[in-house]
């Protein structure tokens, strides 16, 4: 990994993107320094997934720029890791967990070459970190949903990207696994990676992210949780009332049943 200190890992400037002619997100501008854990929050359909797909070039940008380490992101996609929402993985495909995780190494291996011992070791380490090493030879379709999610996370780890984009990585997994995954993400952050997580779970955001990006077609707010987690901002983001309640030494977000 390069030691060059970039001011920002990821910069997005006036981004507009969507699936047809009308943009699903627009005017998106924000910048993330390296070594940060960022939460992206917003209601369903707000554009969290769209934002990720636009950054990765999976959908075309209609306007704006996306820079990774001050150069166009599209030409550095191997440095960006992506964990999509728990979508349908091709379960019937004859590949093992190990084969799938090895796919994360392909950009580093390079065209027309075969993976080597370094790659094998990288895959082994990634599998160990997500606690799937015993299942390395299992065919991918025989894993449970949570195990699959961990396998895909291991693939991202093996890729060793500078920027990680994780779309709802904690949904569909049990609490213990959630905790373990989060600890892993924090470890990555501590090692200088930039980890961006789109999430529904507002309470985990309050506790553990360095920065929060509130999106509802546009950027509603961006900053540390202390600044962003205010009822007026959350109202604007979610379009309905949420309350922030102090429970002991934690702040908890709850839906405001009485609509004040």
């Amino acid at each position, binding site marked *: 990994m390069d030691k060059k200190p970039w001011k920002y890992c990821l910069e997005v400037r006036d981004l507009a993107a969507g699936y047809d002619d009308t943009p699903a997100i627009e005017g998106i501008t924000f910048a993330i320094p390296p070594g940060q854990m960022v939460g992206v929050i917003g209601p369903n359909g707000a554009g969290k997934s769209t934002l990720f797909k636009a950054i990765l070039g999976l959908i075309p940008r209609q306007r704006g720029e996306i820079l990774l380490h001050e150069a166009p992101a599209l030409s550095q996609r191997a440095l960006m890791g992506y964990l999509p929402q728990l979508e349908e993985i091709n379960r019937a*495909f004859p590949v093992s967990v190990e084969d799938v995780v090895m796919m994360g190494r392909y950009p580093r291996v390079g065209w027309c070459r075969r993976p080597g011992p370094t790659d094998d070791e990288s895959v082994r380490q990634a599998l160990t970190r997500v606690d799937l090493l015993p299942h390395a030879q299992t065919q991918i379709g025989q894993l449970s949903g949570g195990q699959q999610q961990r396998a895909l996370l291991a693939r991202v780890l093996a890729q060793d990207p500078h920027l990680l984009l994780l779309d709802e990585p904690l949904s569909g997994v049990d609490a213990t696994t959630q905790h373990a995954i989060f600890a892993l993400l924090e470890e990555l952050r501590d090692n200088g990676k930039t980890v961006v997580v789109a999430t529904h779970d507002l309470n985990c955001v309050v506790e553990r992210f360095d920065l929060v990006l509130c999106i509802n077609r546009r950027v509603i707010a961006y900053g540390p949780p202390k600044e962003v987690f205010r009822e007026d901002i959350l109202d604007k983001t979610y379009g309905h009332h949420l309350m922030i309640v102090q429970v002991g030494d934690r702040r908890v977000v709850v839906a405001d049943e009485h609509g004040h």
Partner: protein
Amino acid sequence: MRGWFSMIEFLVAPFEFGFMQRALLGGVLVGAICALVGTYVVLRGLAFVGDALAHAAFPGVVIAYLLKGNIYLGATIFALATALAIGLVSRRGRVSYDTAIGILFAGAFALGVLLMSTIHGYTVDLFSFLFGNVLGISQRDLLLVGLLGAMVVLTIILFYKELLLLSFDPTTAEAMGYPVQALNHLLLGLIALTIVISIQAVGIILVVALLVTPSATAYLLTERFLRMMILGVLLAALAAVIGLYLSYYLNVASGAAIVLVSTCLFFLVLASLRLWKARRPRA
């Protein structure tokens, strides 16, 4: 003693003939290459496209025949052009991929039939491209099959992991920066080339069977990609050998015999697996 002797005679006798030796080599080579490429066809649901490209090659064959040009070249041009056309027609979104394939498949083949009907006279040669004529394969044909086949194998080796990733998870492939569209075109190109190589052995109408059946049988037997490829090749080679024996001794069409053996092998494996699973108590 006499029994063994006549069995060996039975097995060896056909191959005293040059044409049978060439047919064996041609059949096995073609079967093997089809099974390699067929791995992707089966796993990615490309059987319909494969059949379409094969049928689309027919007008190219007829035109080359009429112009006394190179049949393989004519076939390749039309197969590749159709692959491109399918992509173009389905791009805008209103015409689905499946529909685009159907339209171009039938249209191209009809063109070939129309052109063939303009030949008032000897058309048996053209029929052999439709149904195969591996017993008529020449040294030159074998050389071409070997050369083009080597190109296919080399491409698969070079792009093994990229094609694997593309087949398993095209979204992630794109997210990592791989040129997914170009790779898809590469795969279709490989299929087109494989089809062209196989036209002589099994014919345009049946080549899809060689692309699908041995690989499908292999898929029943293994959970590993590379093993599926290798098993497919072995099964295809076996079908070619048995099919040729049948063709020789029963005096029936060779291409069809190979395909039927392949199909029987599939059902044999399927039935055996189901019986085996039924007998084992559920763990």
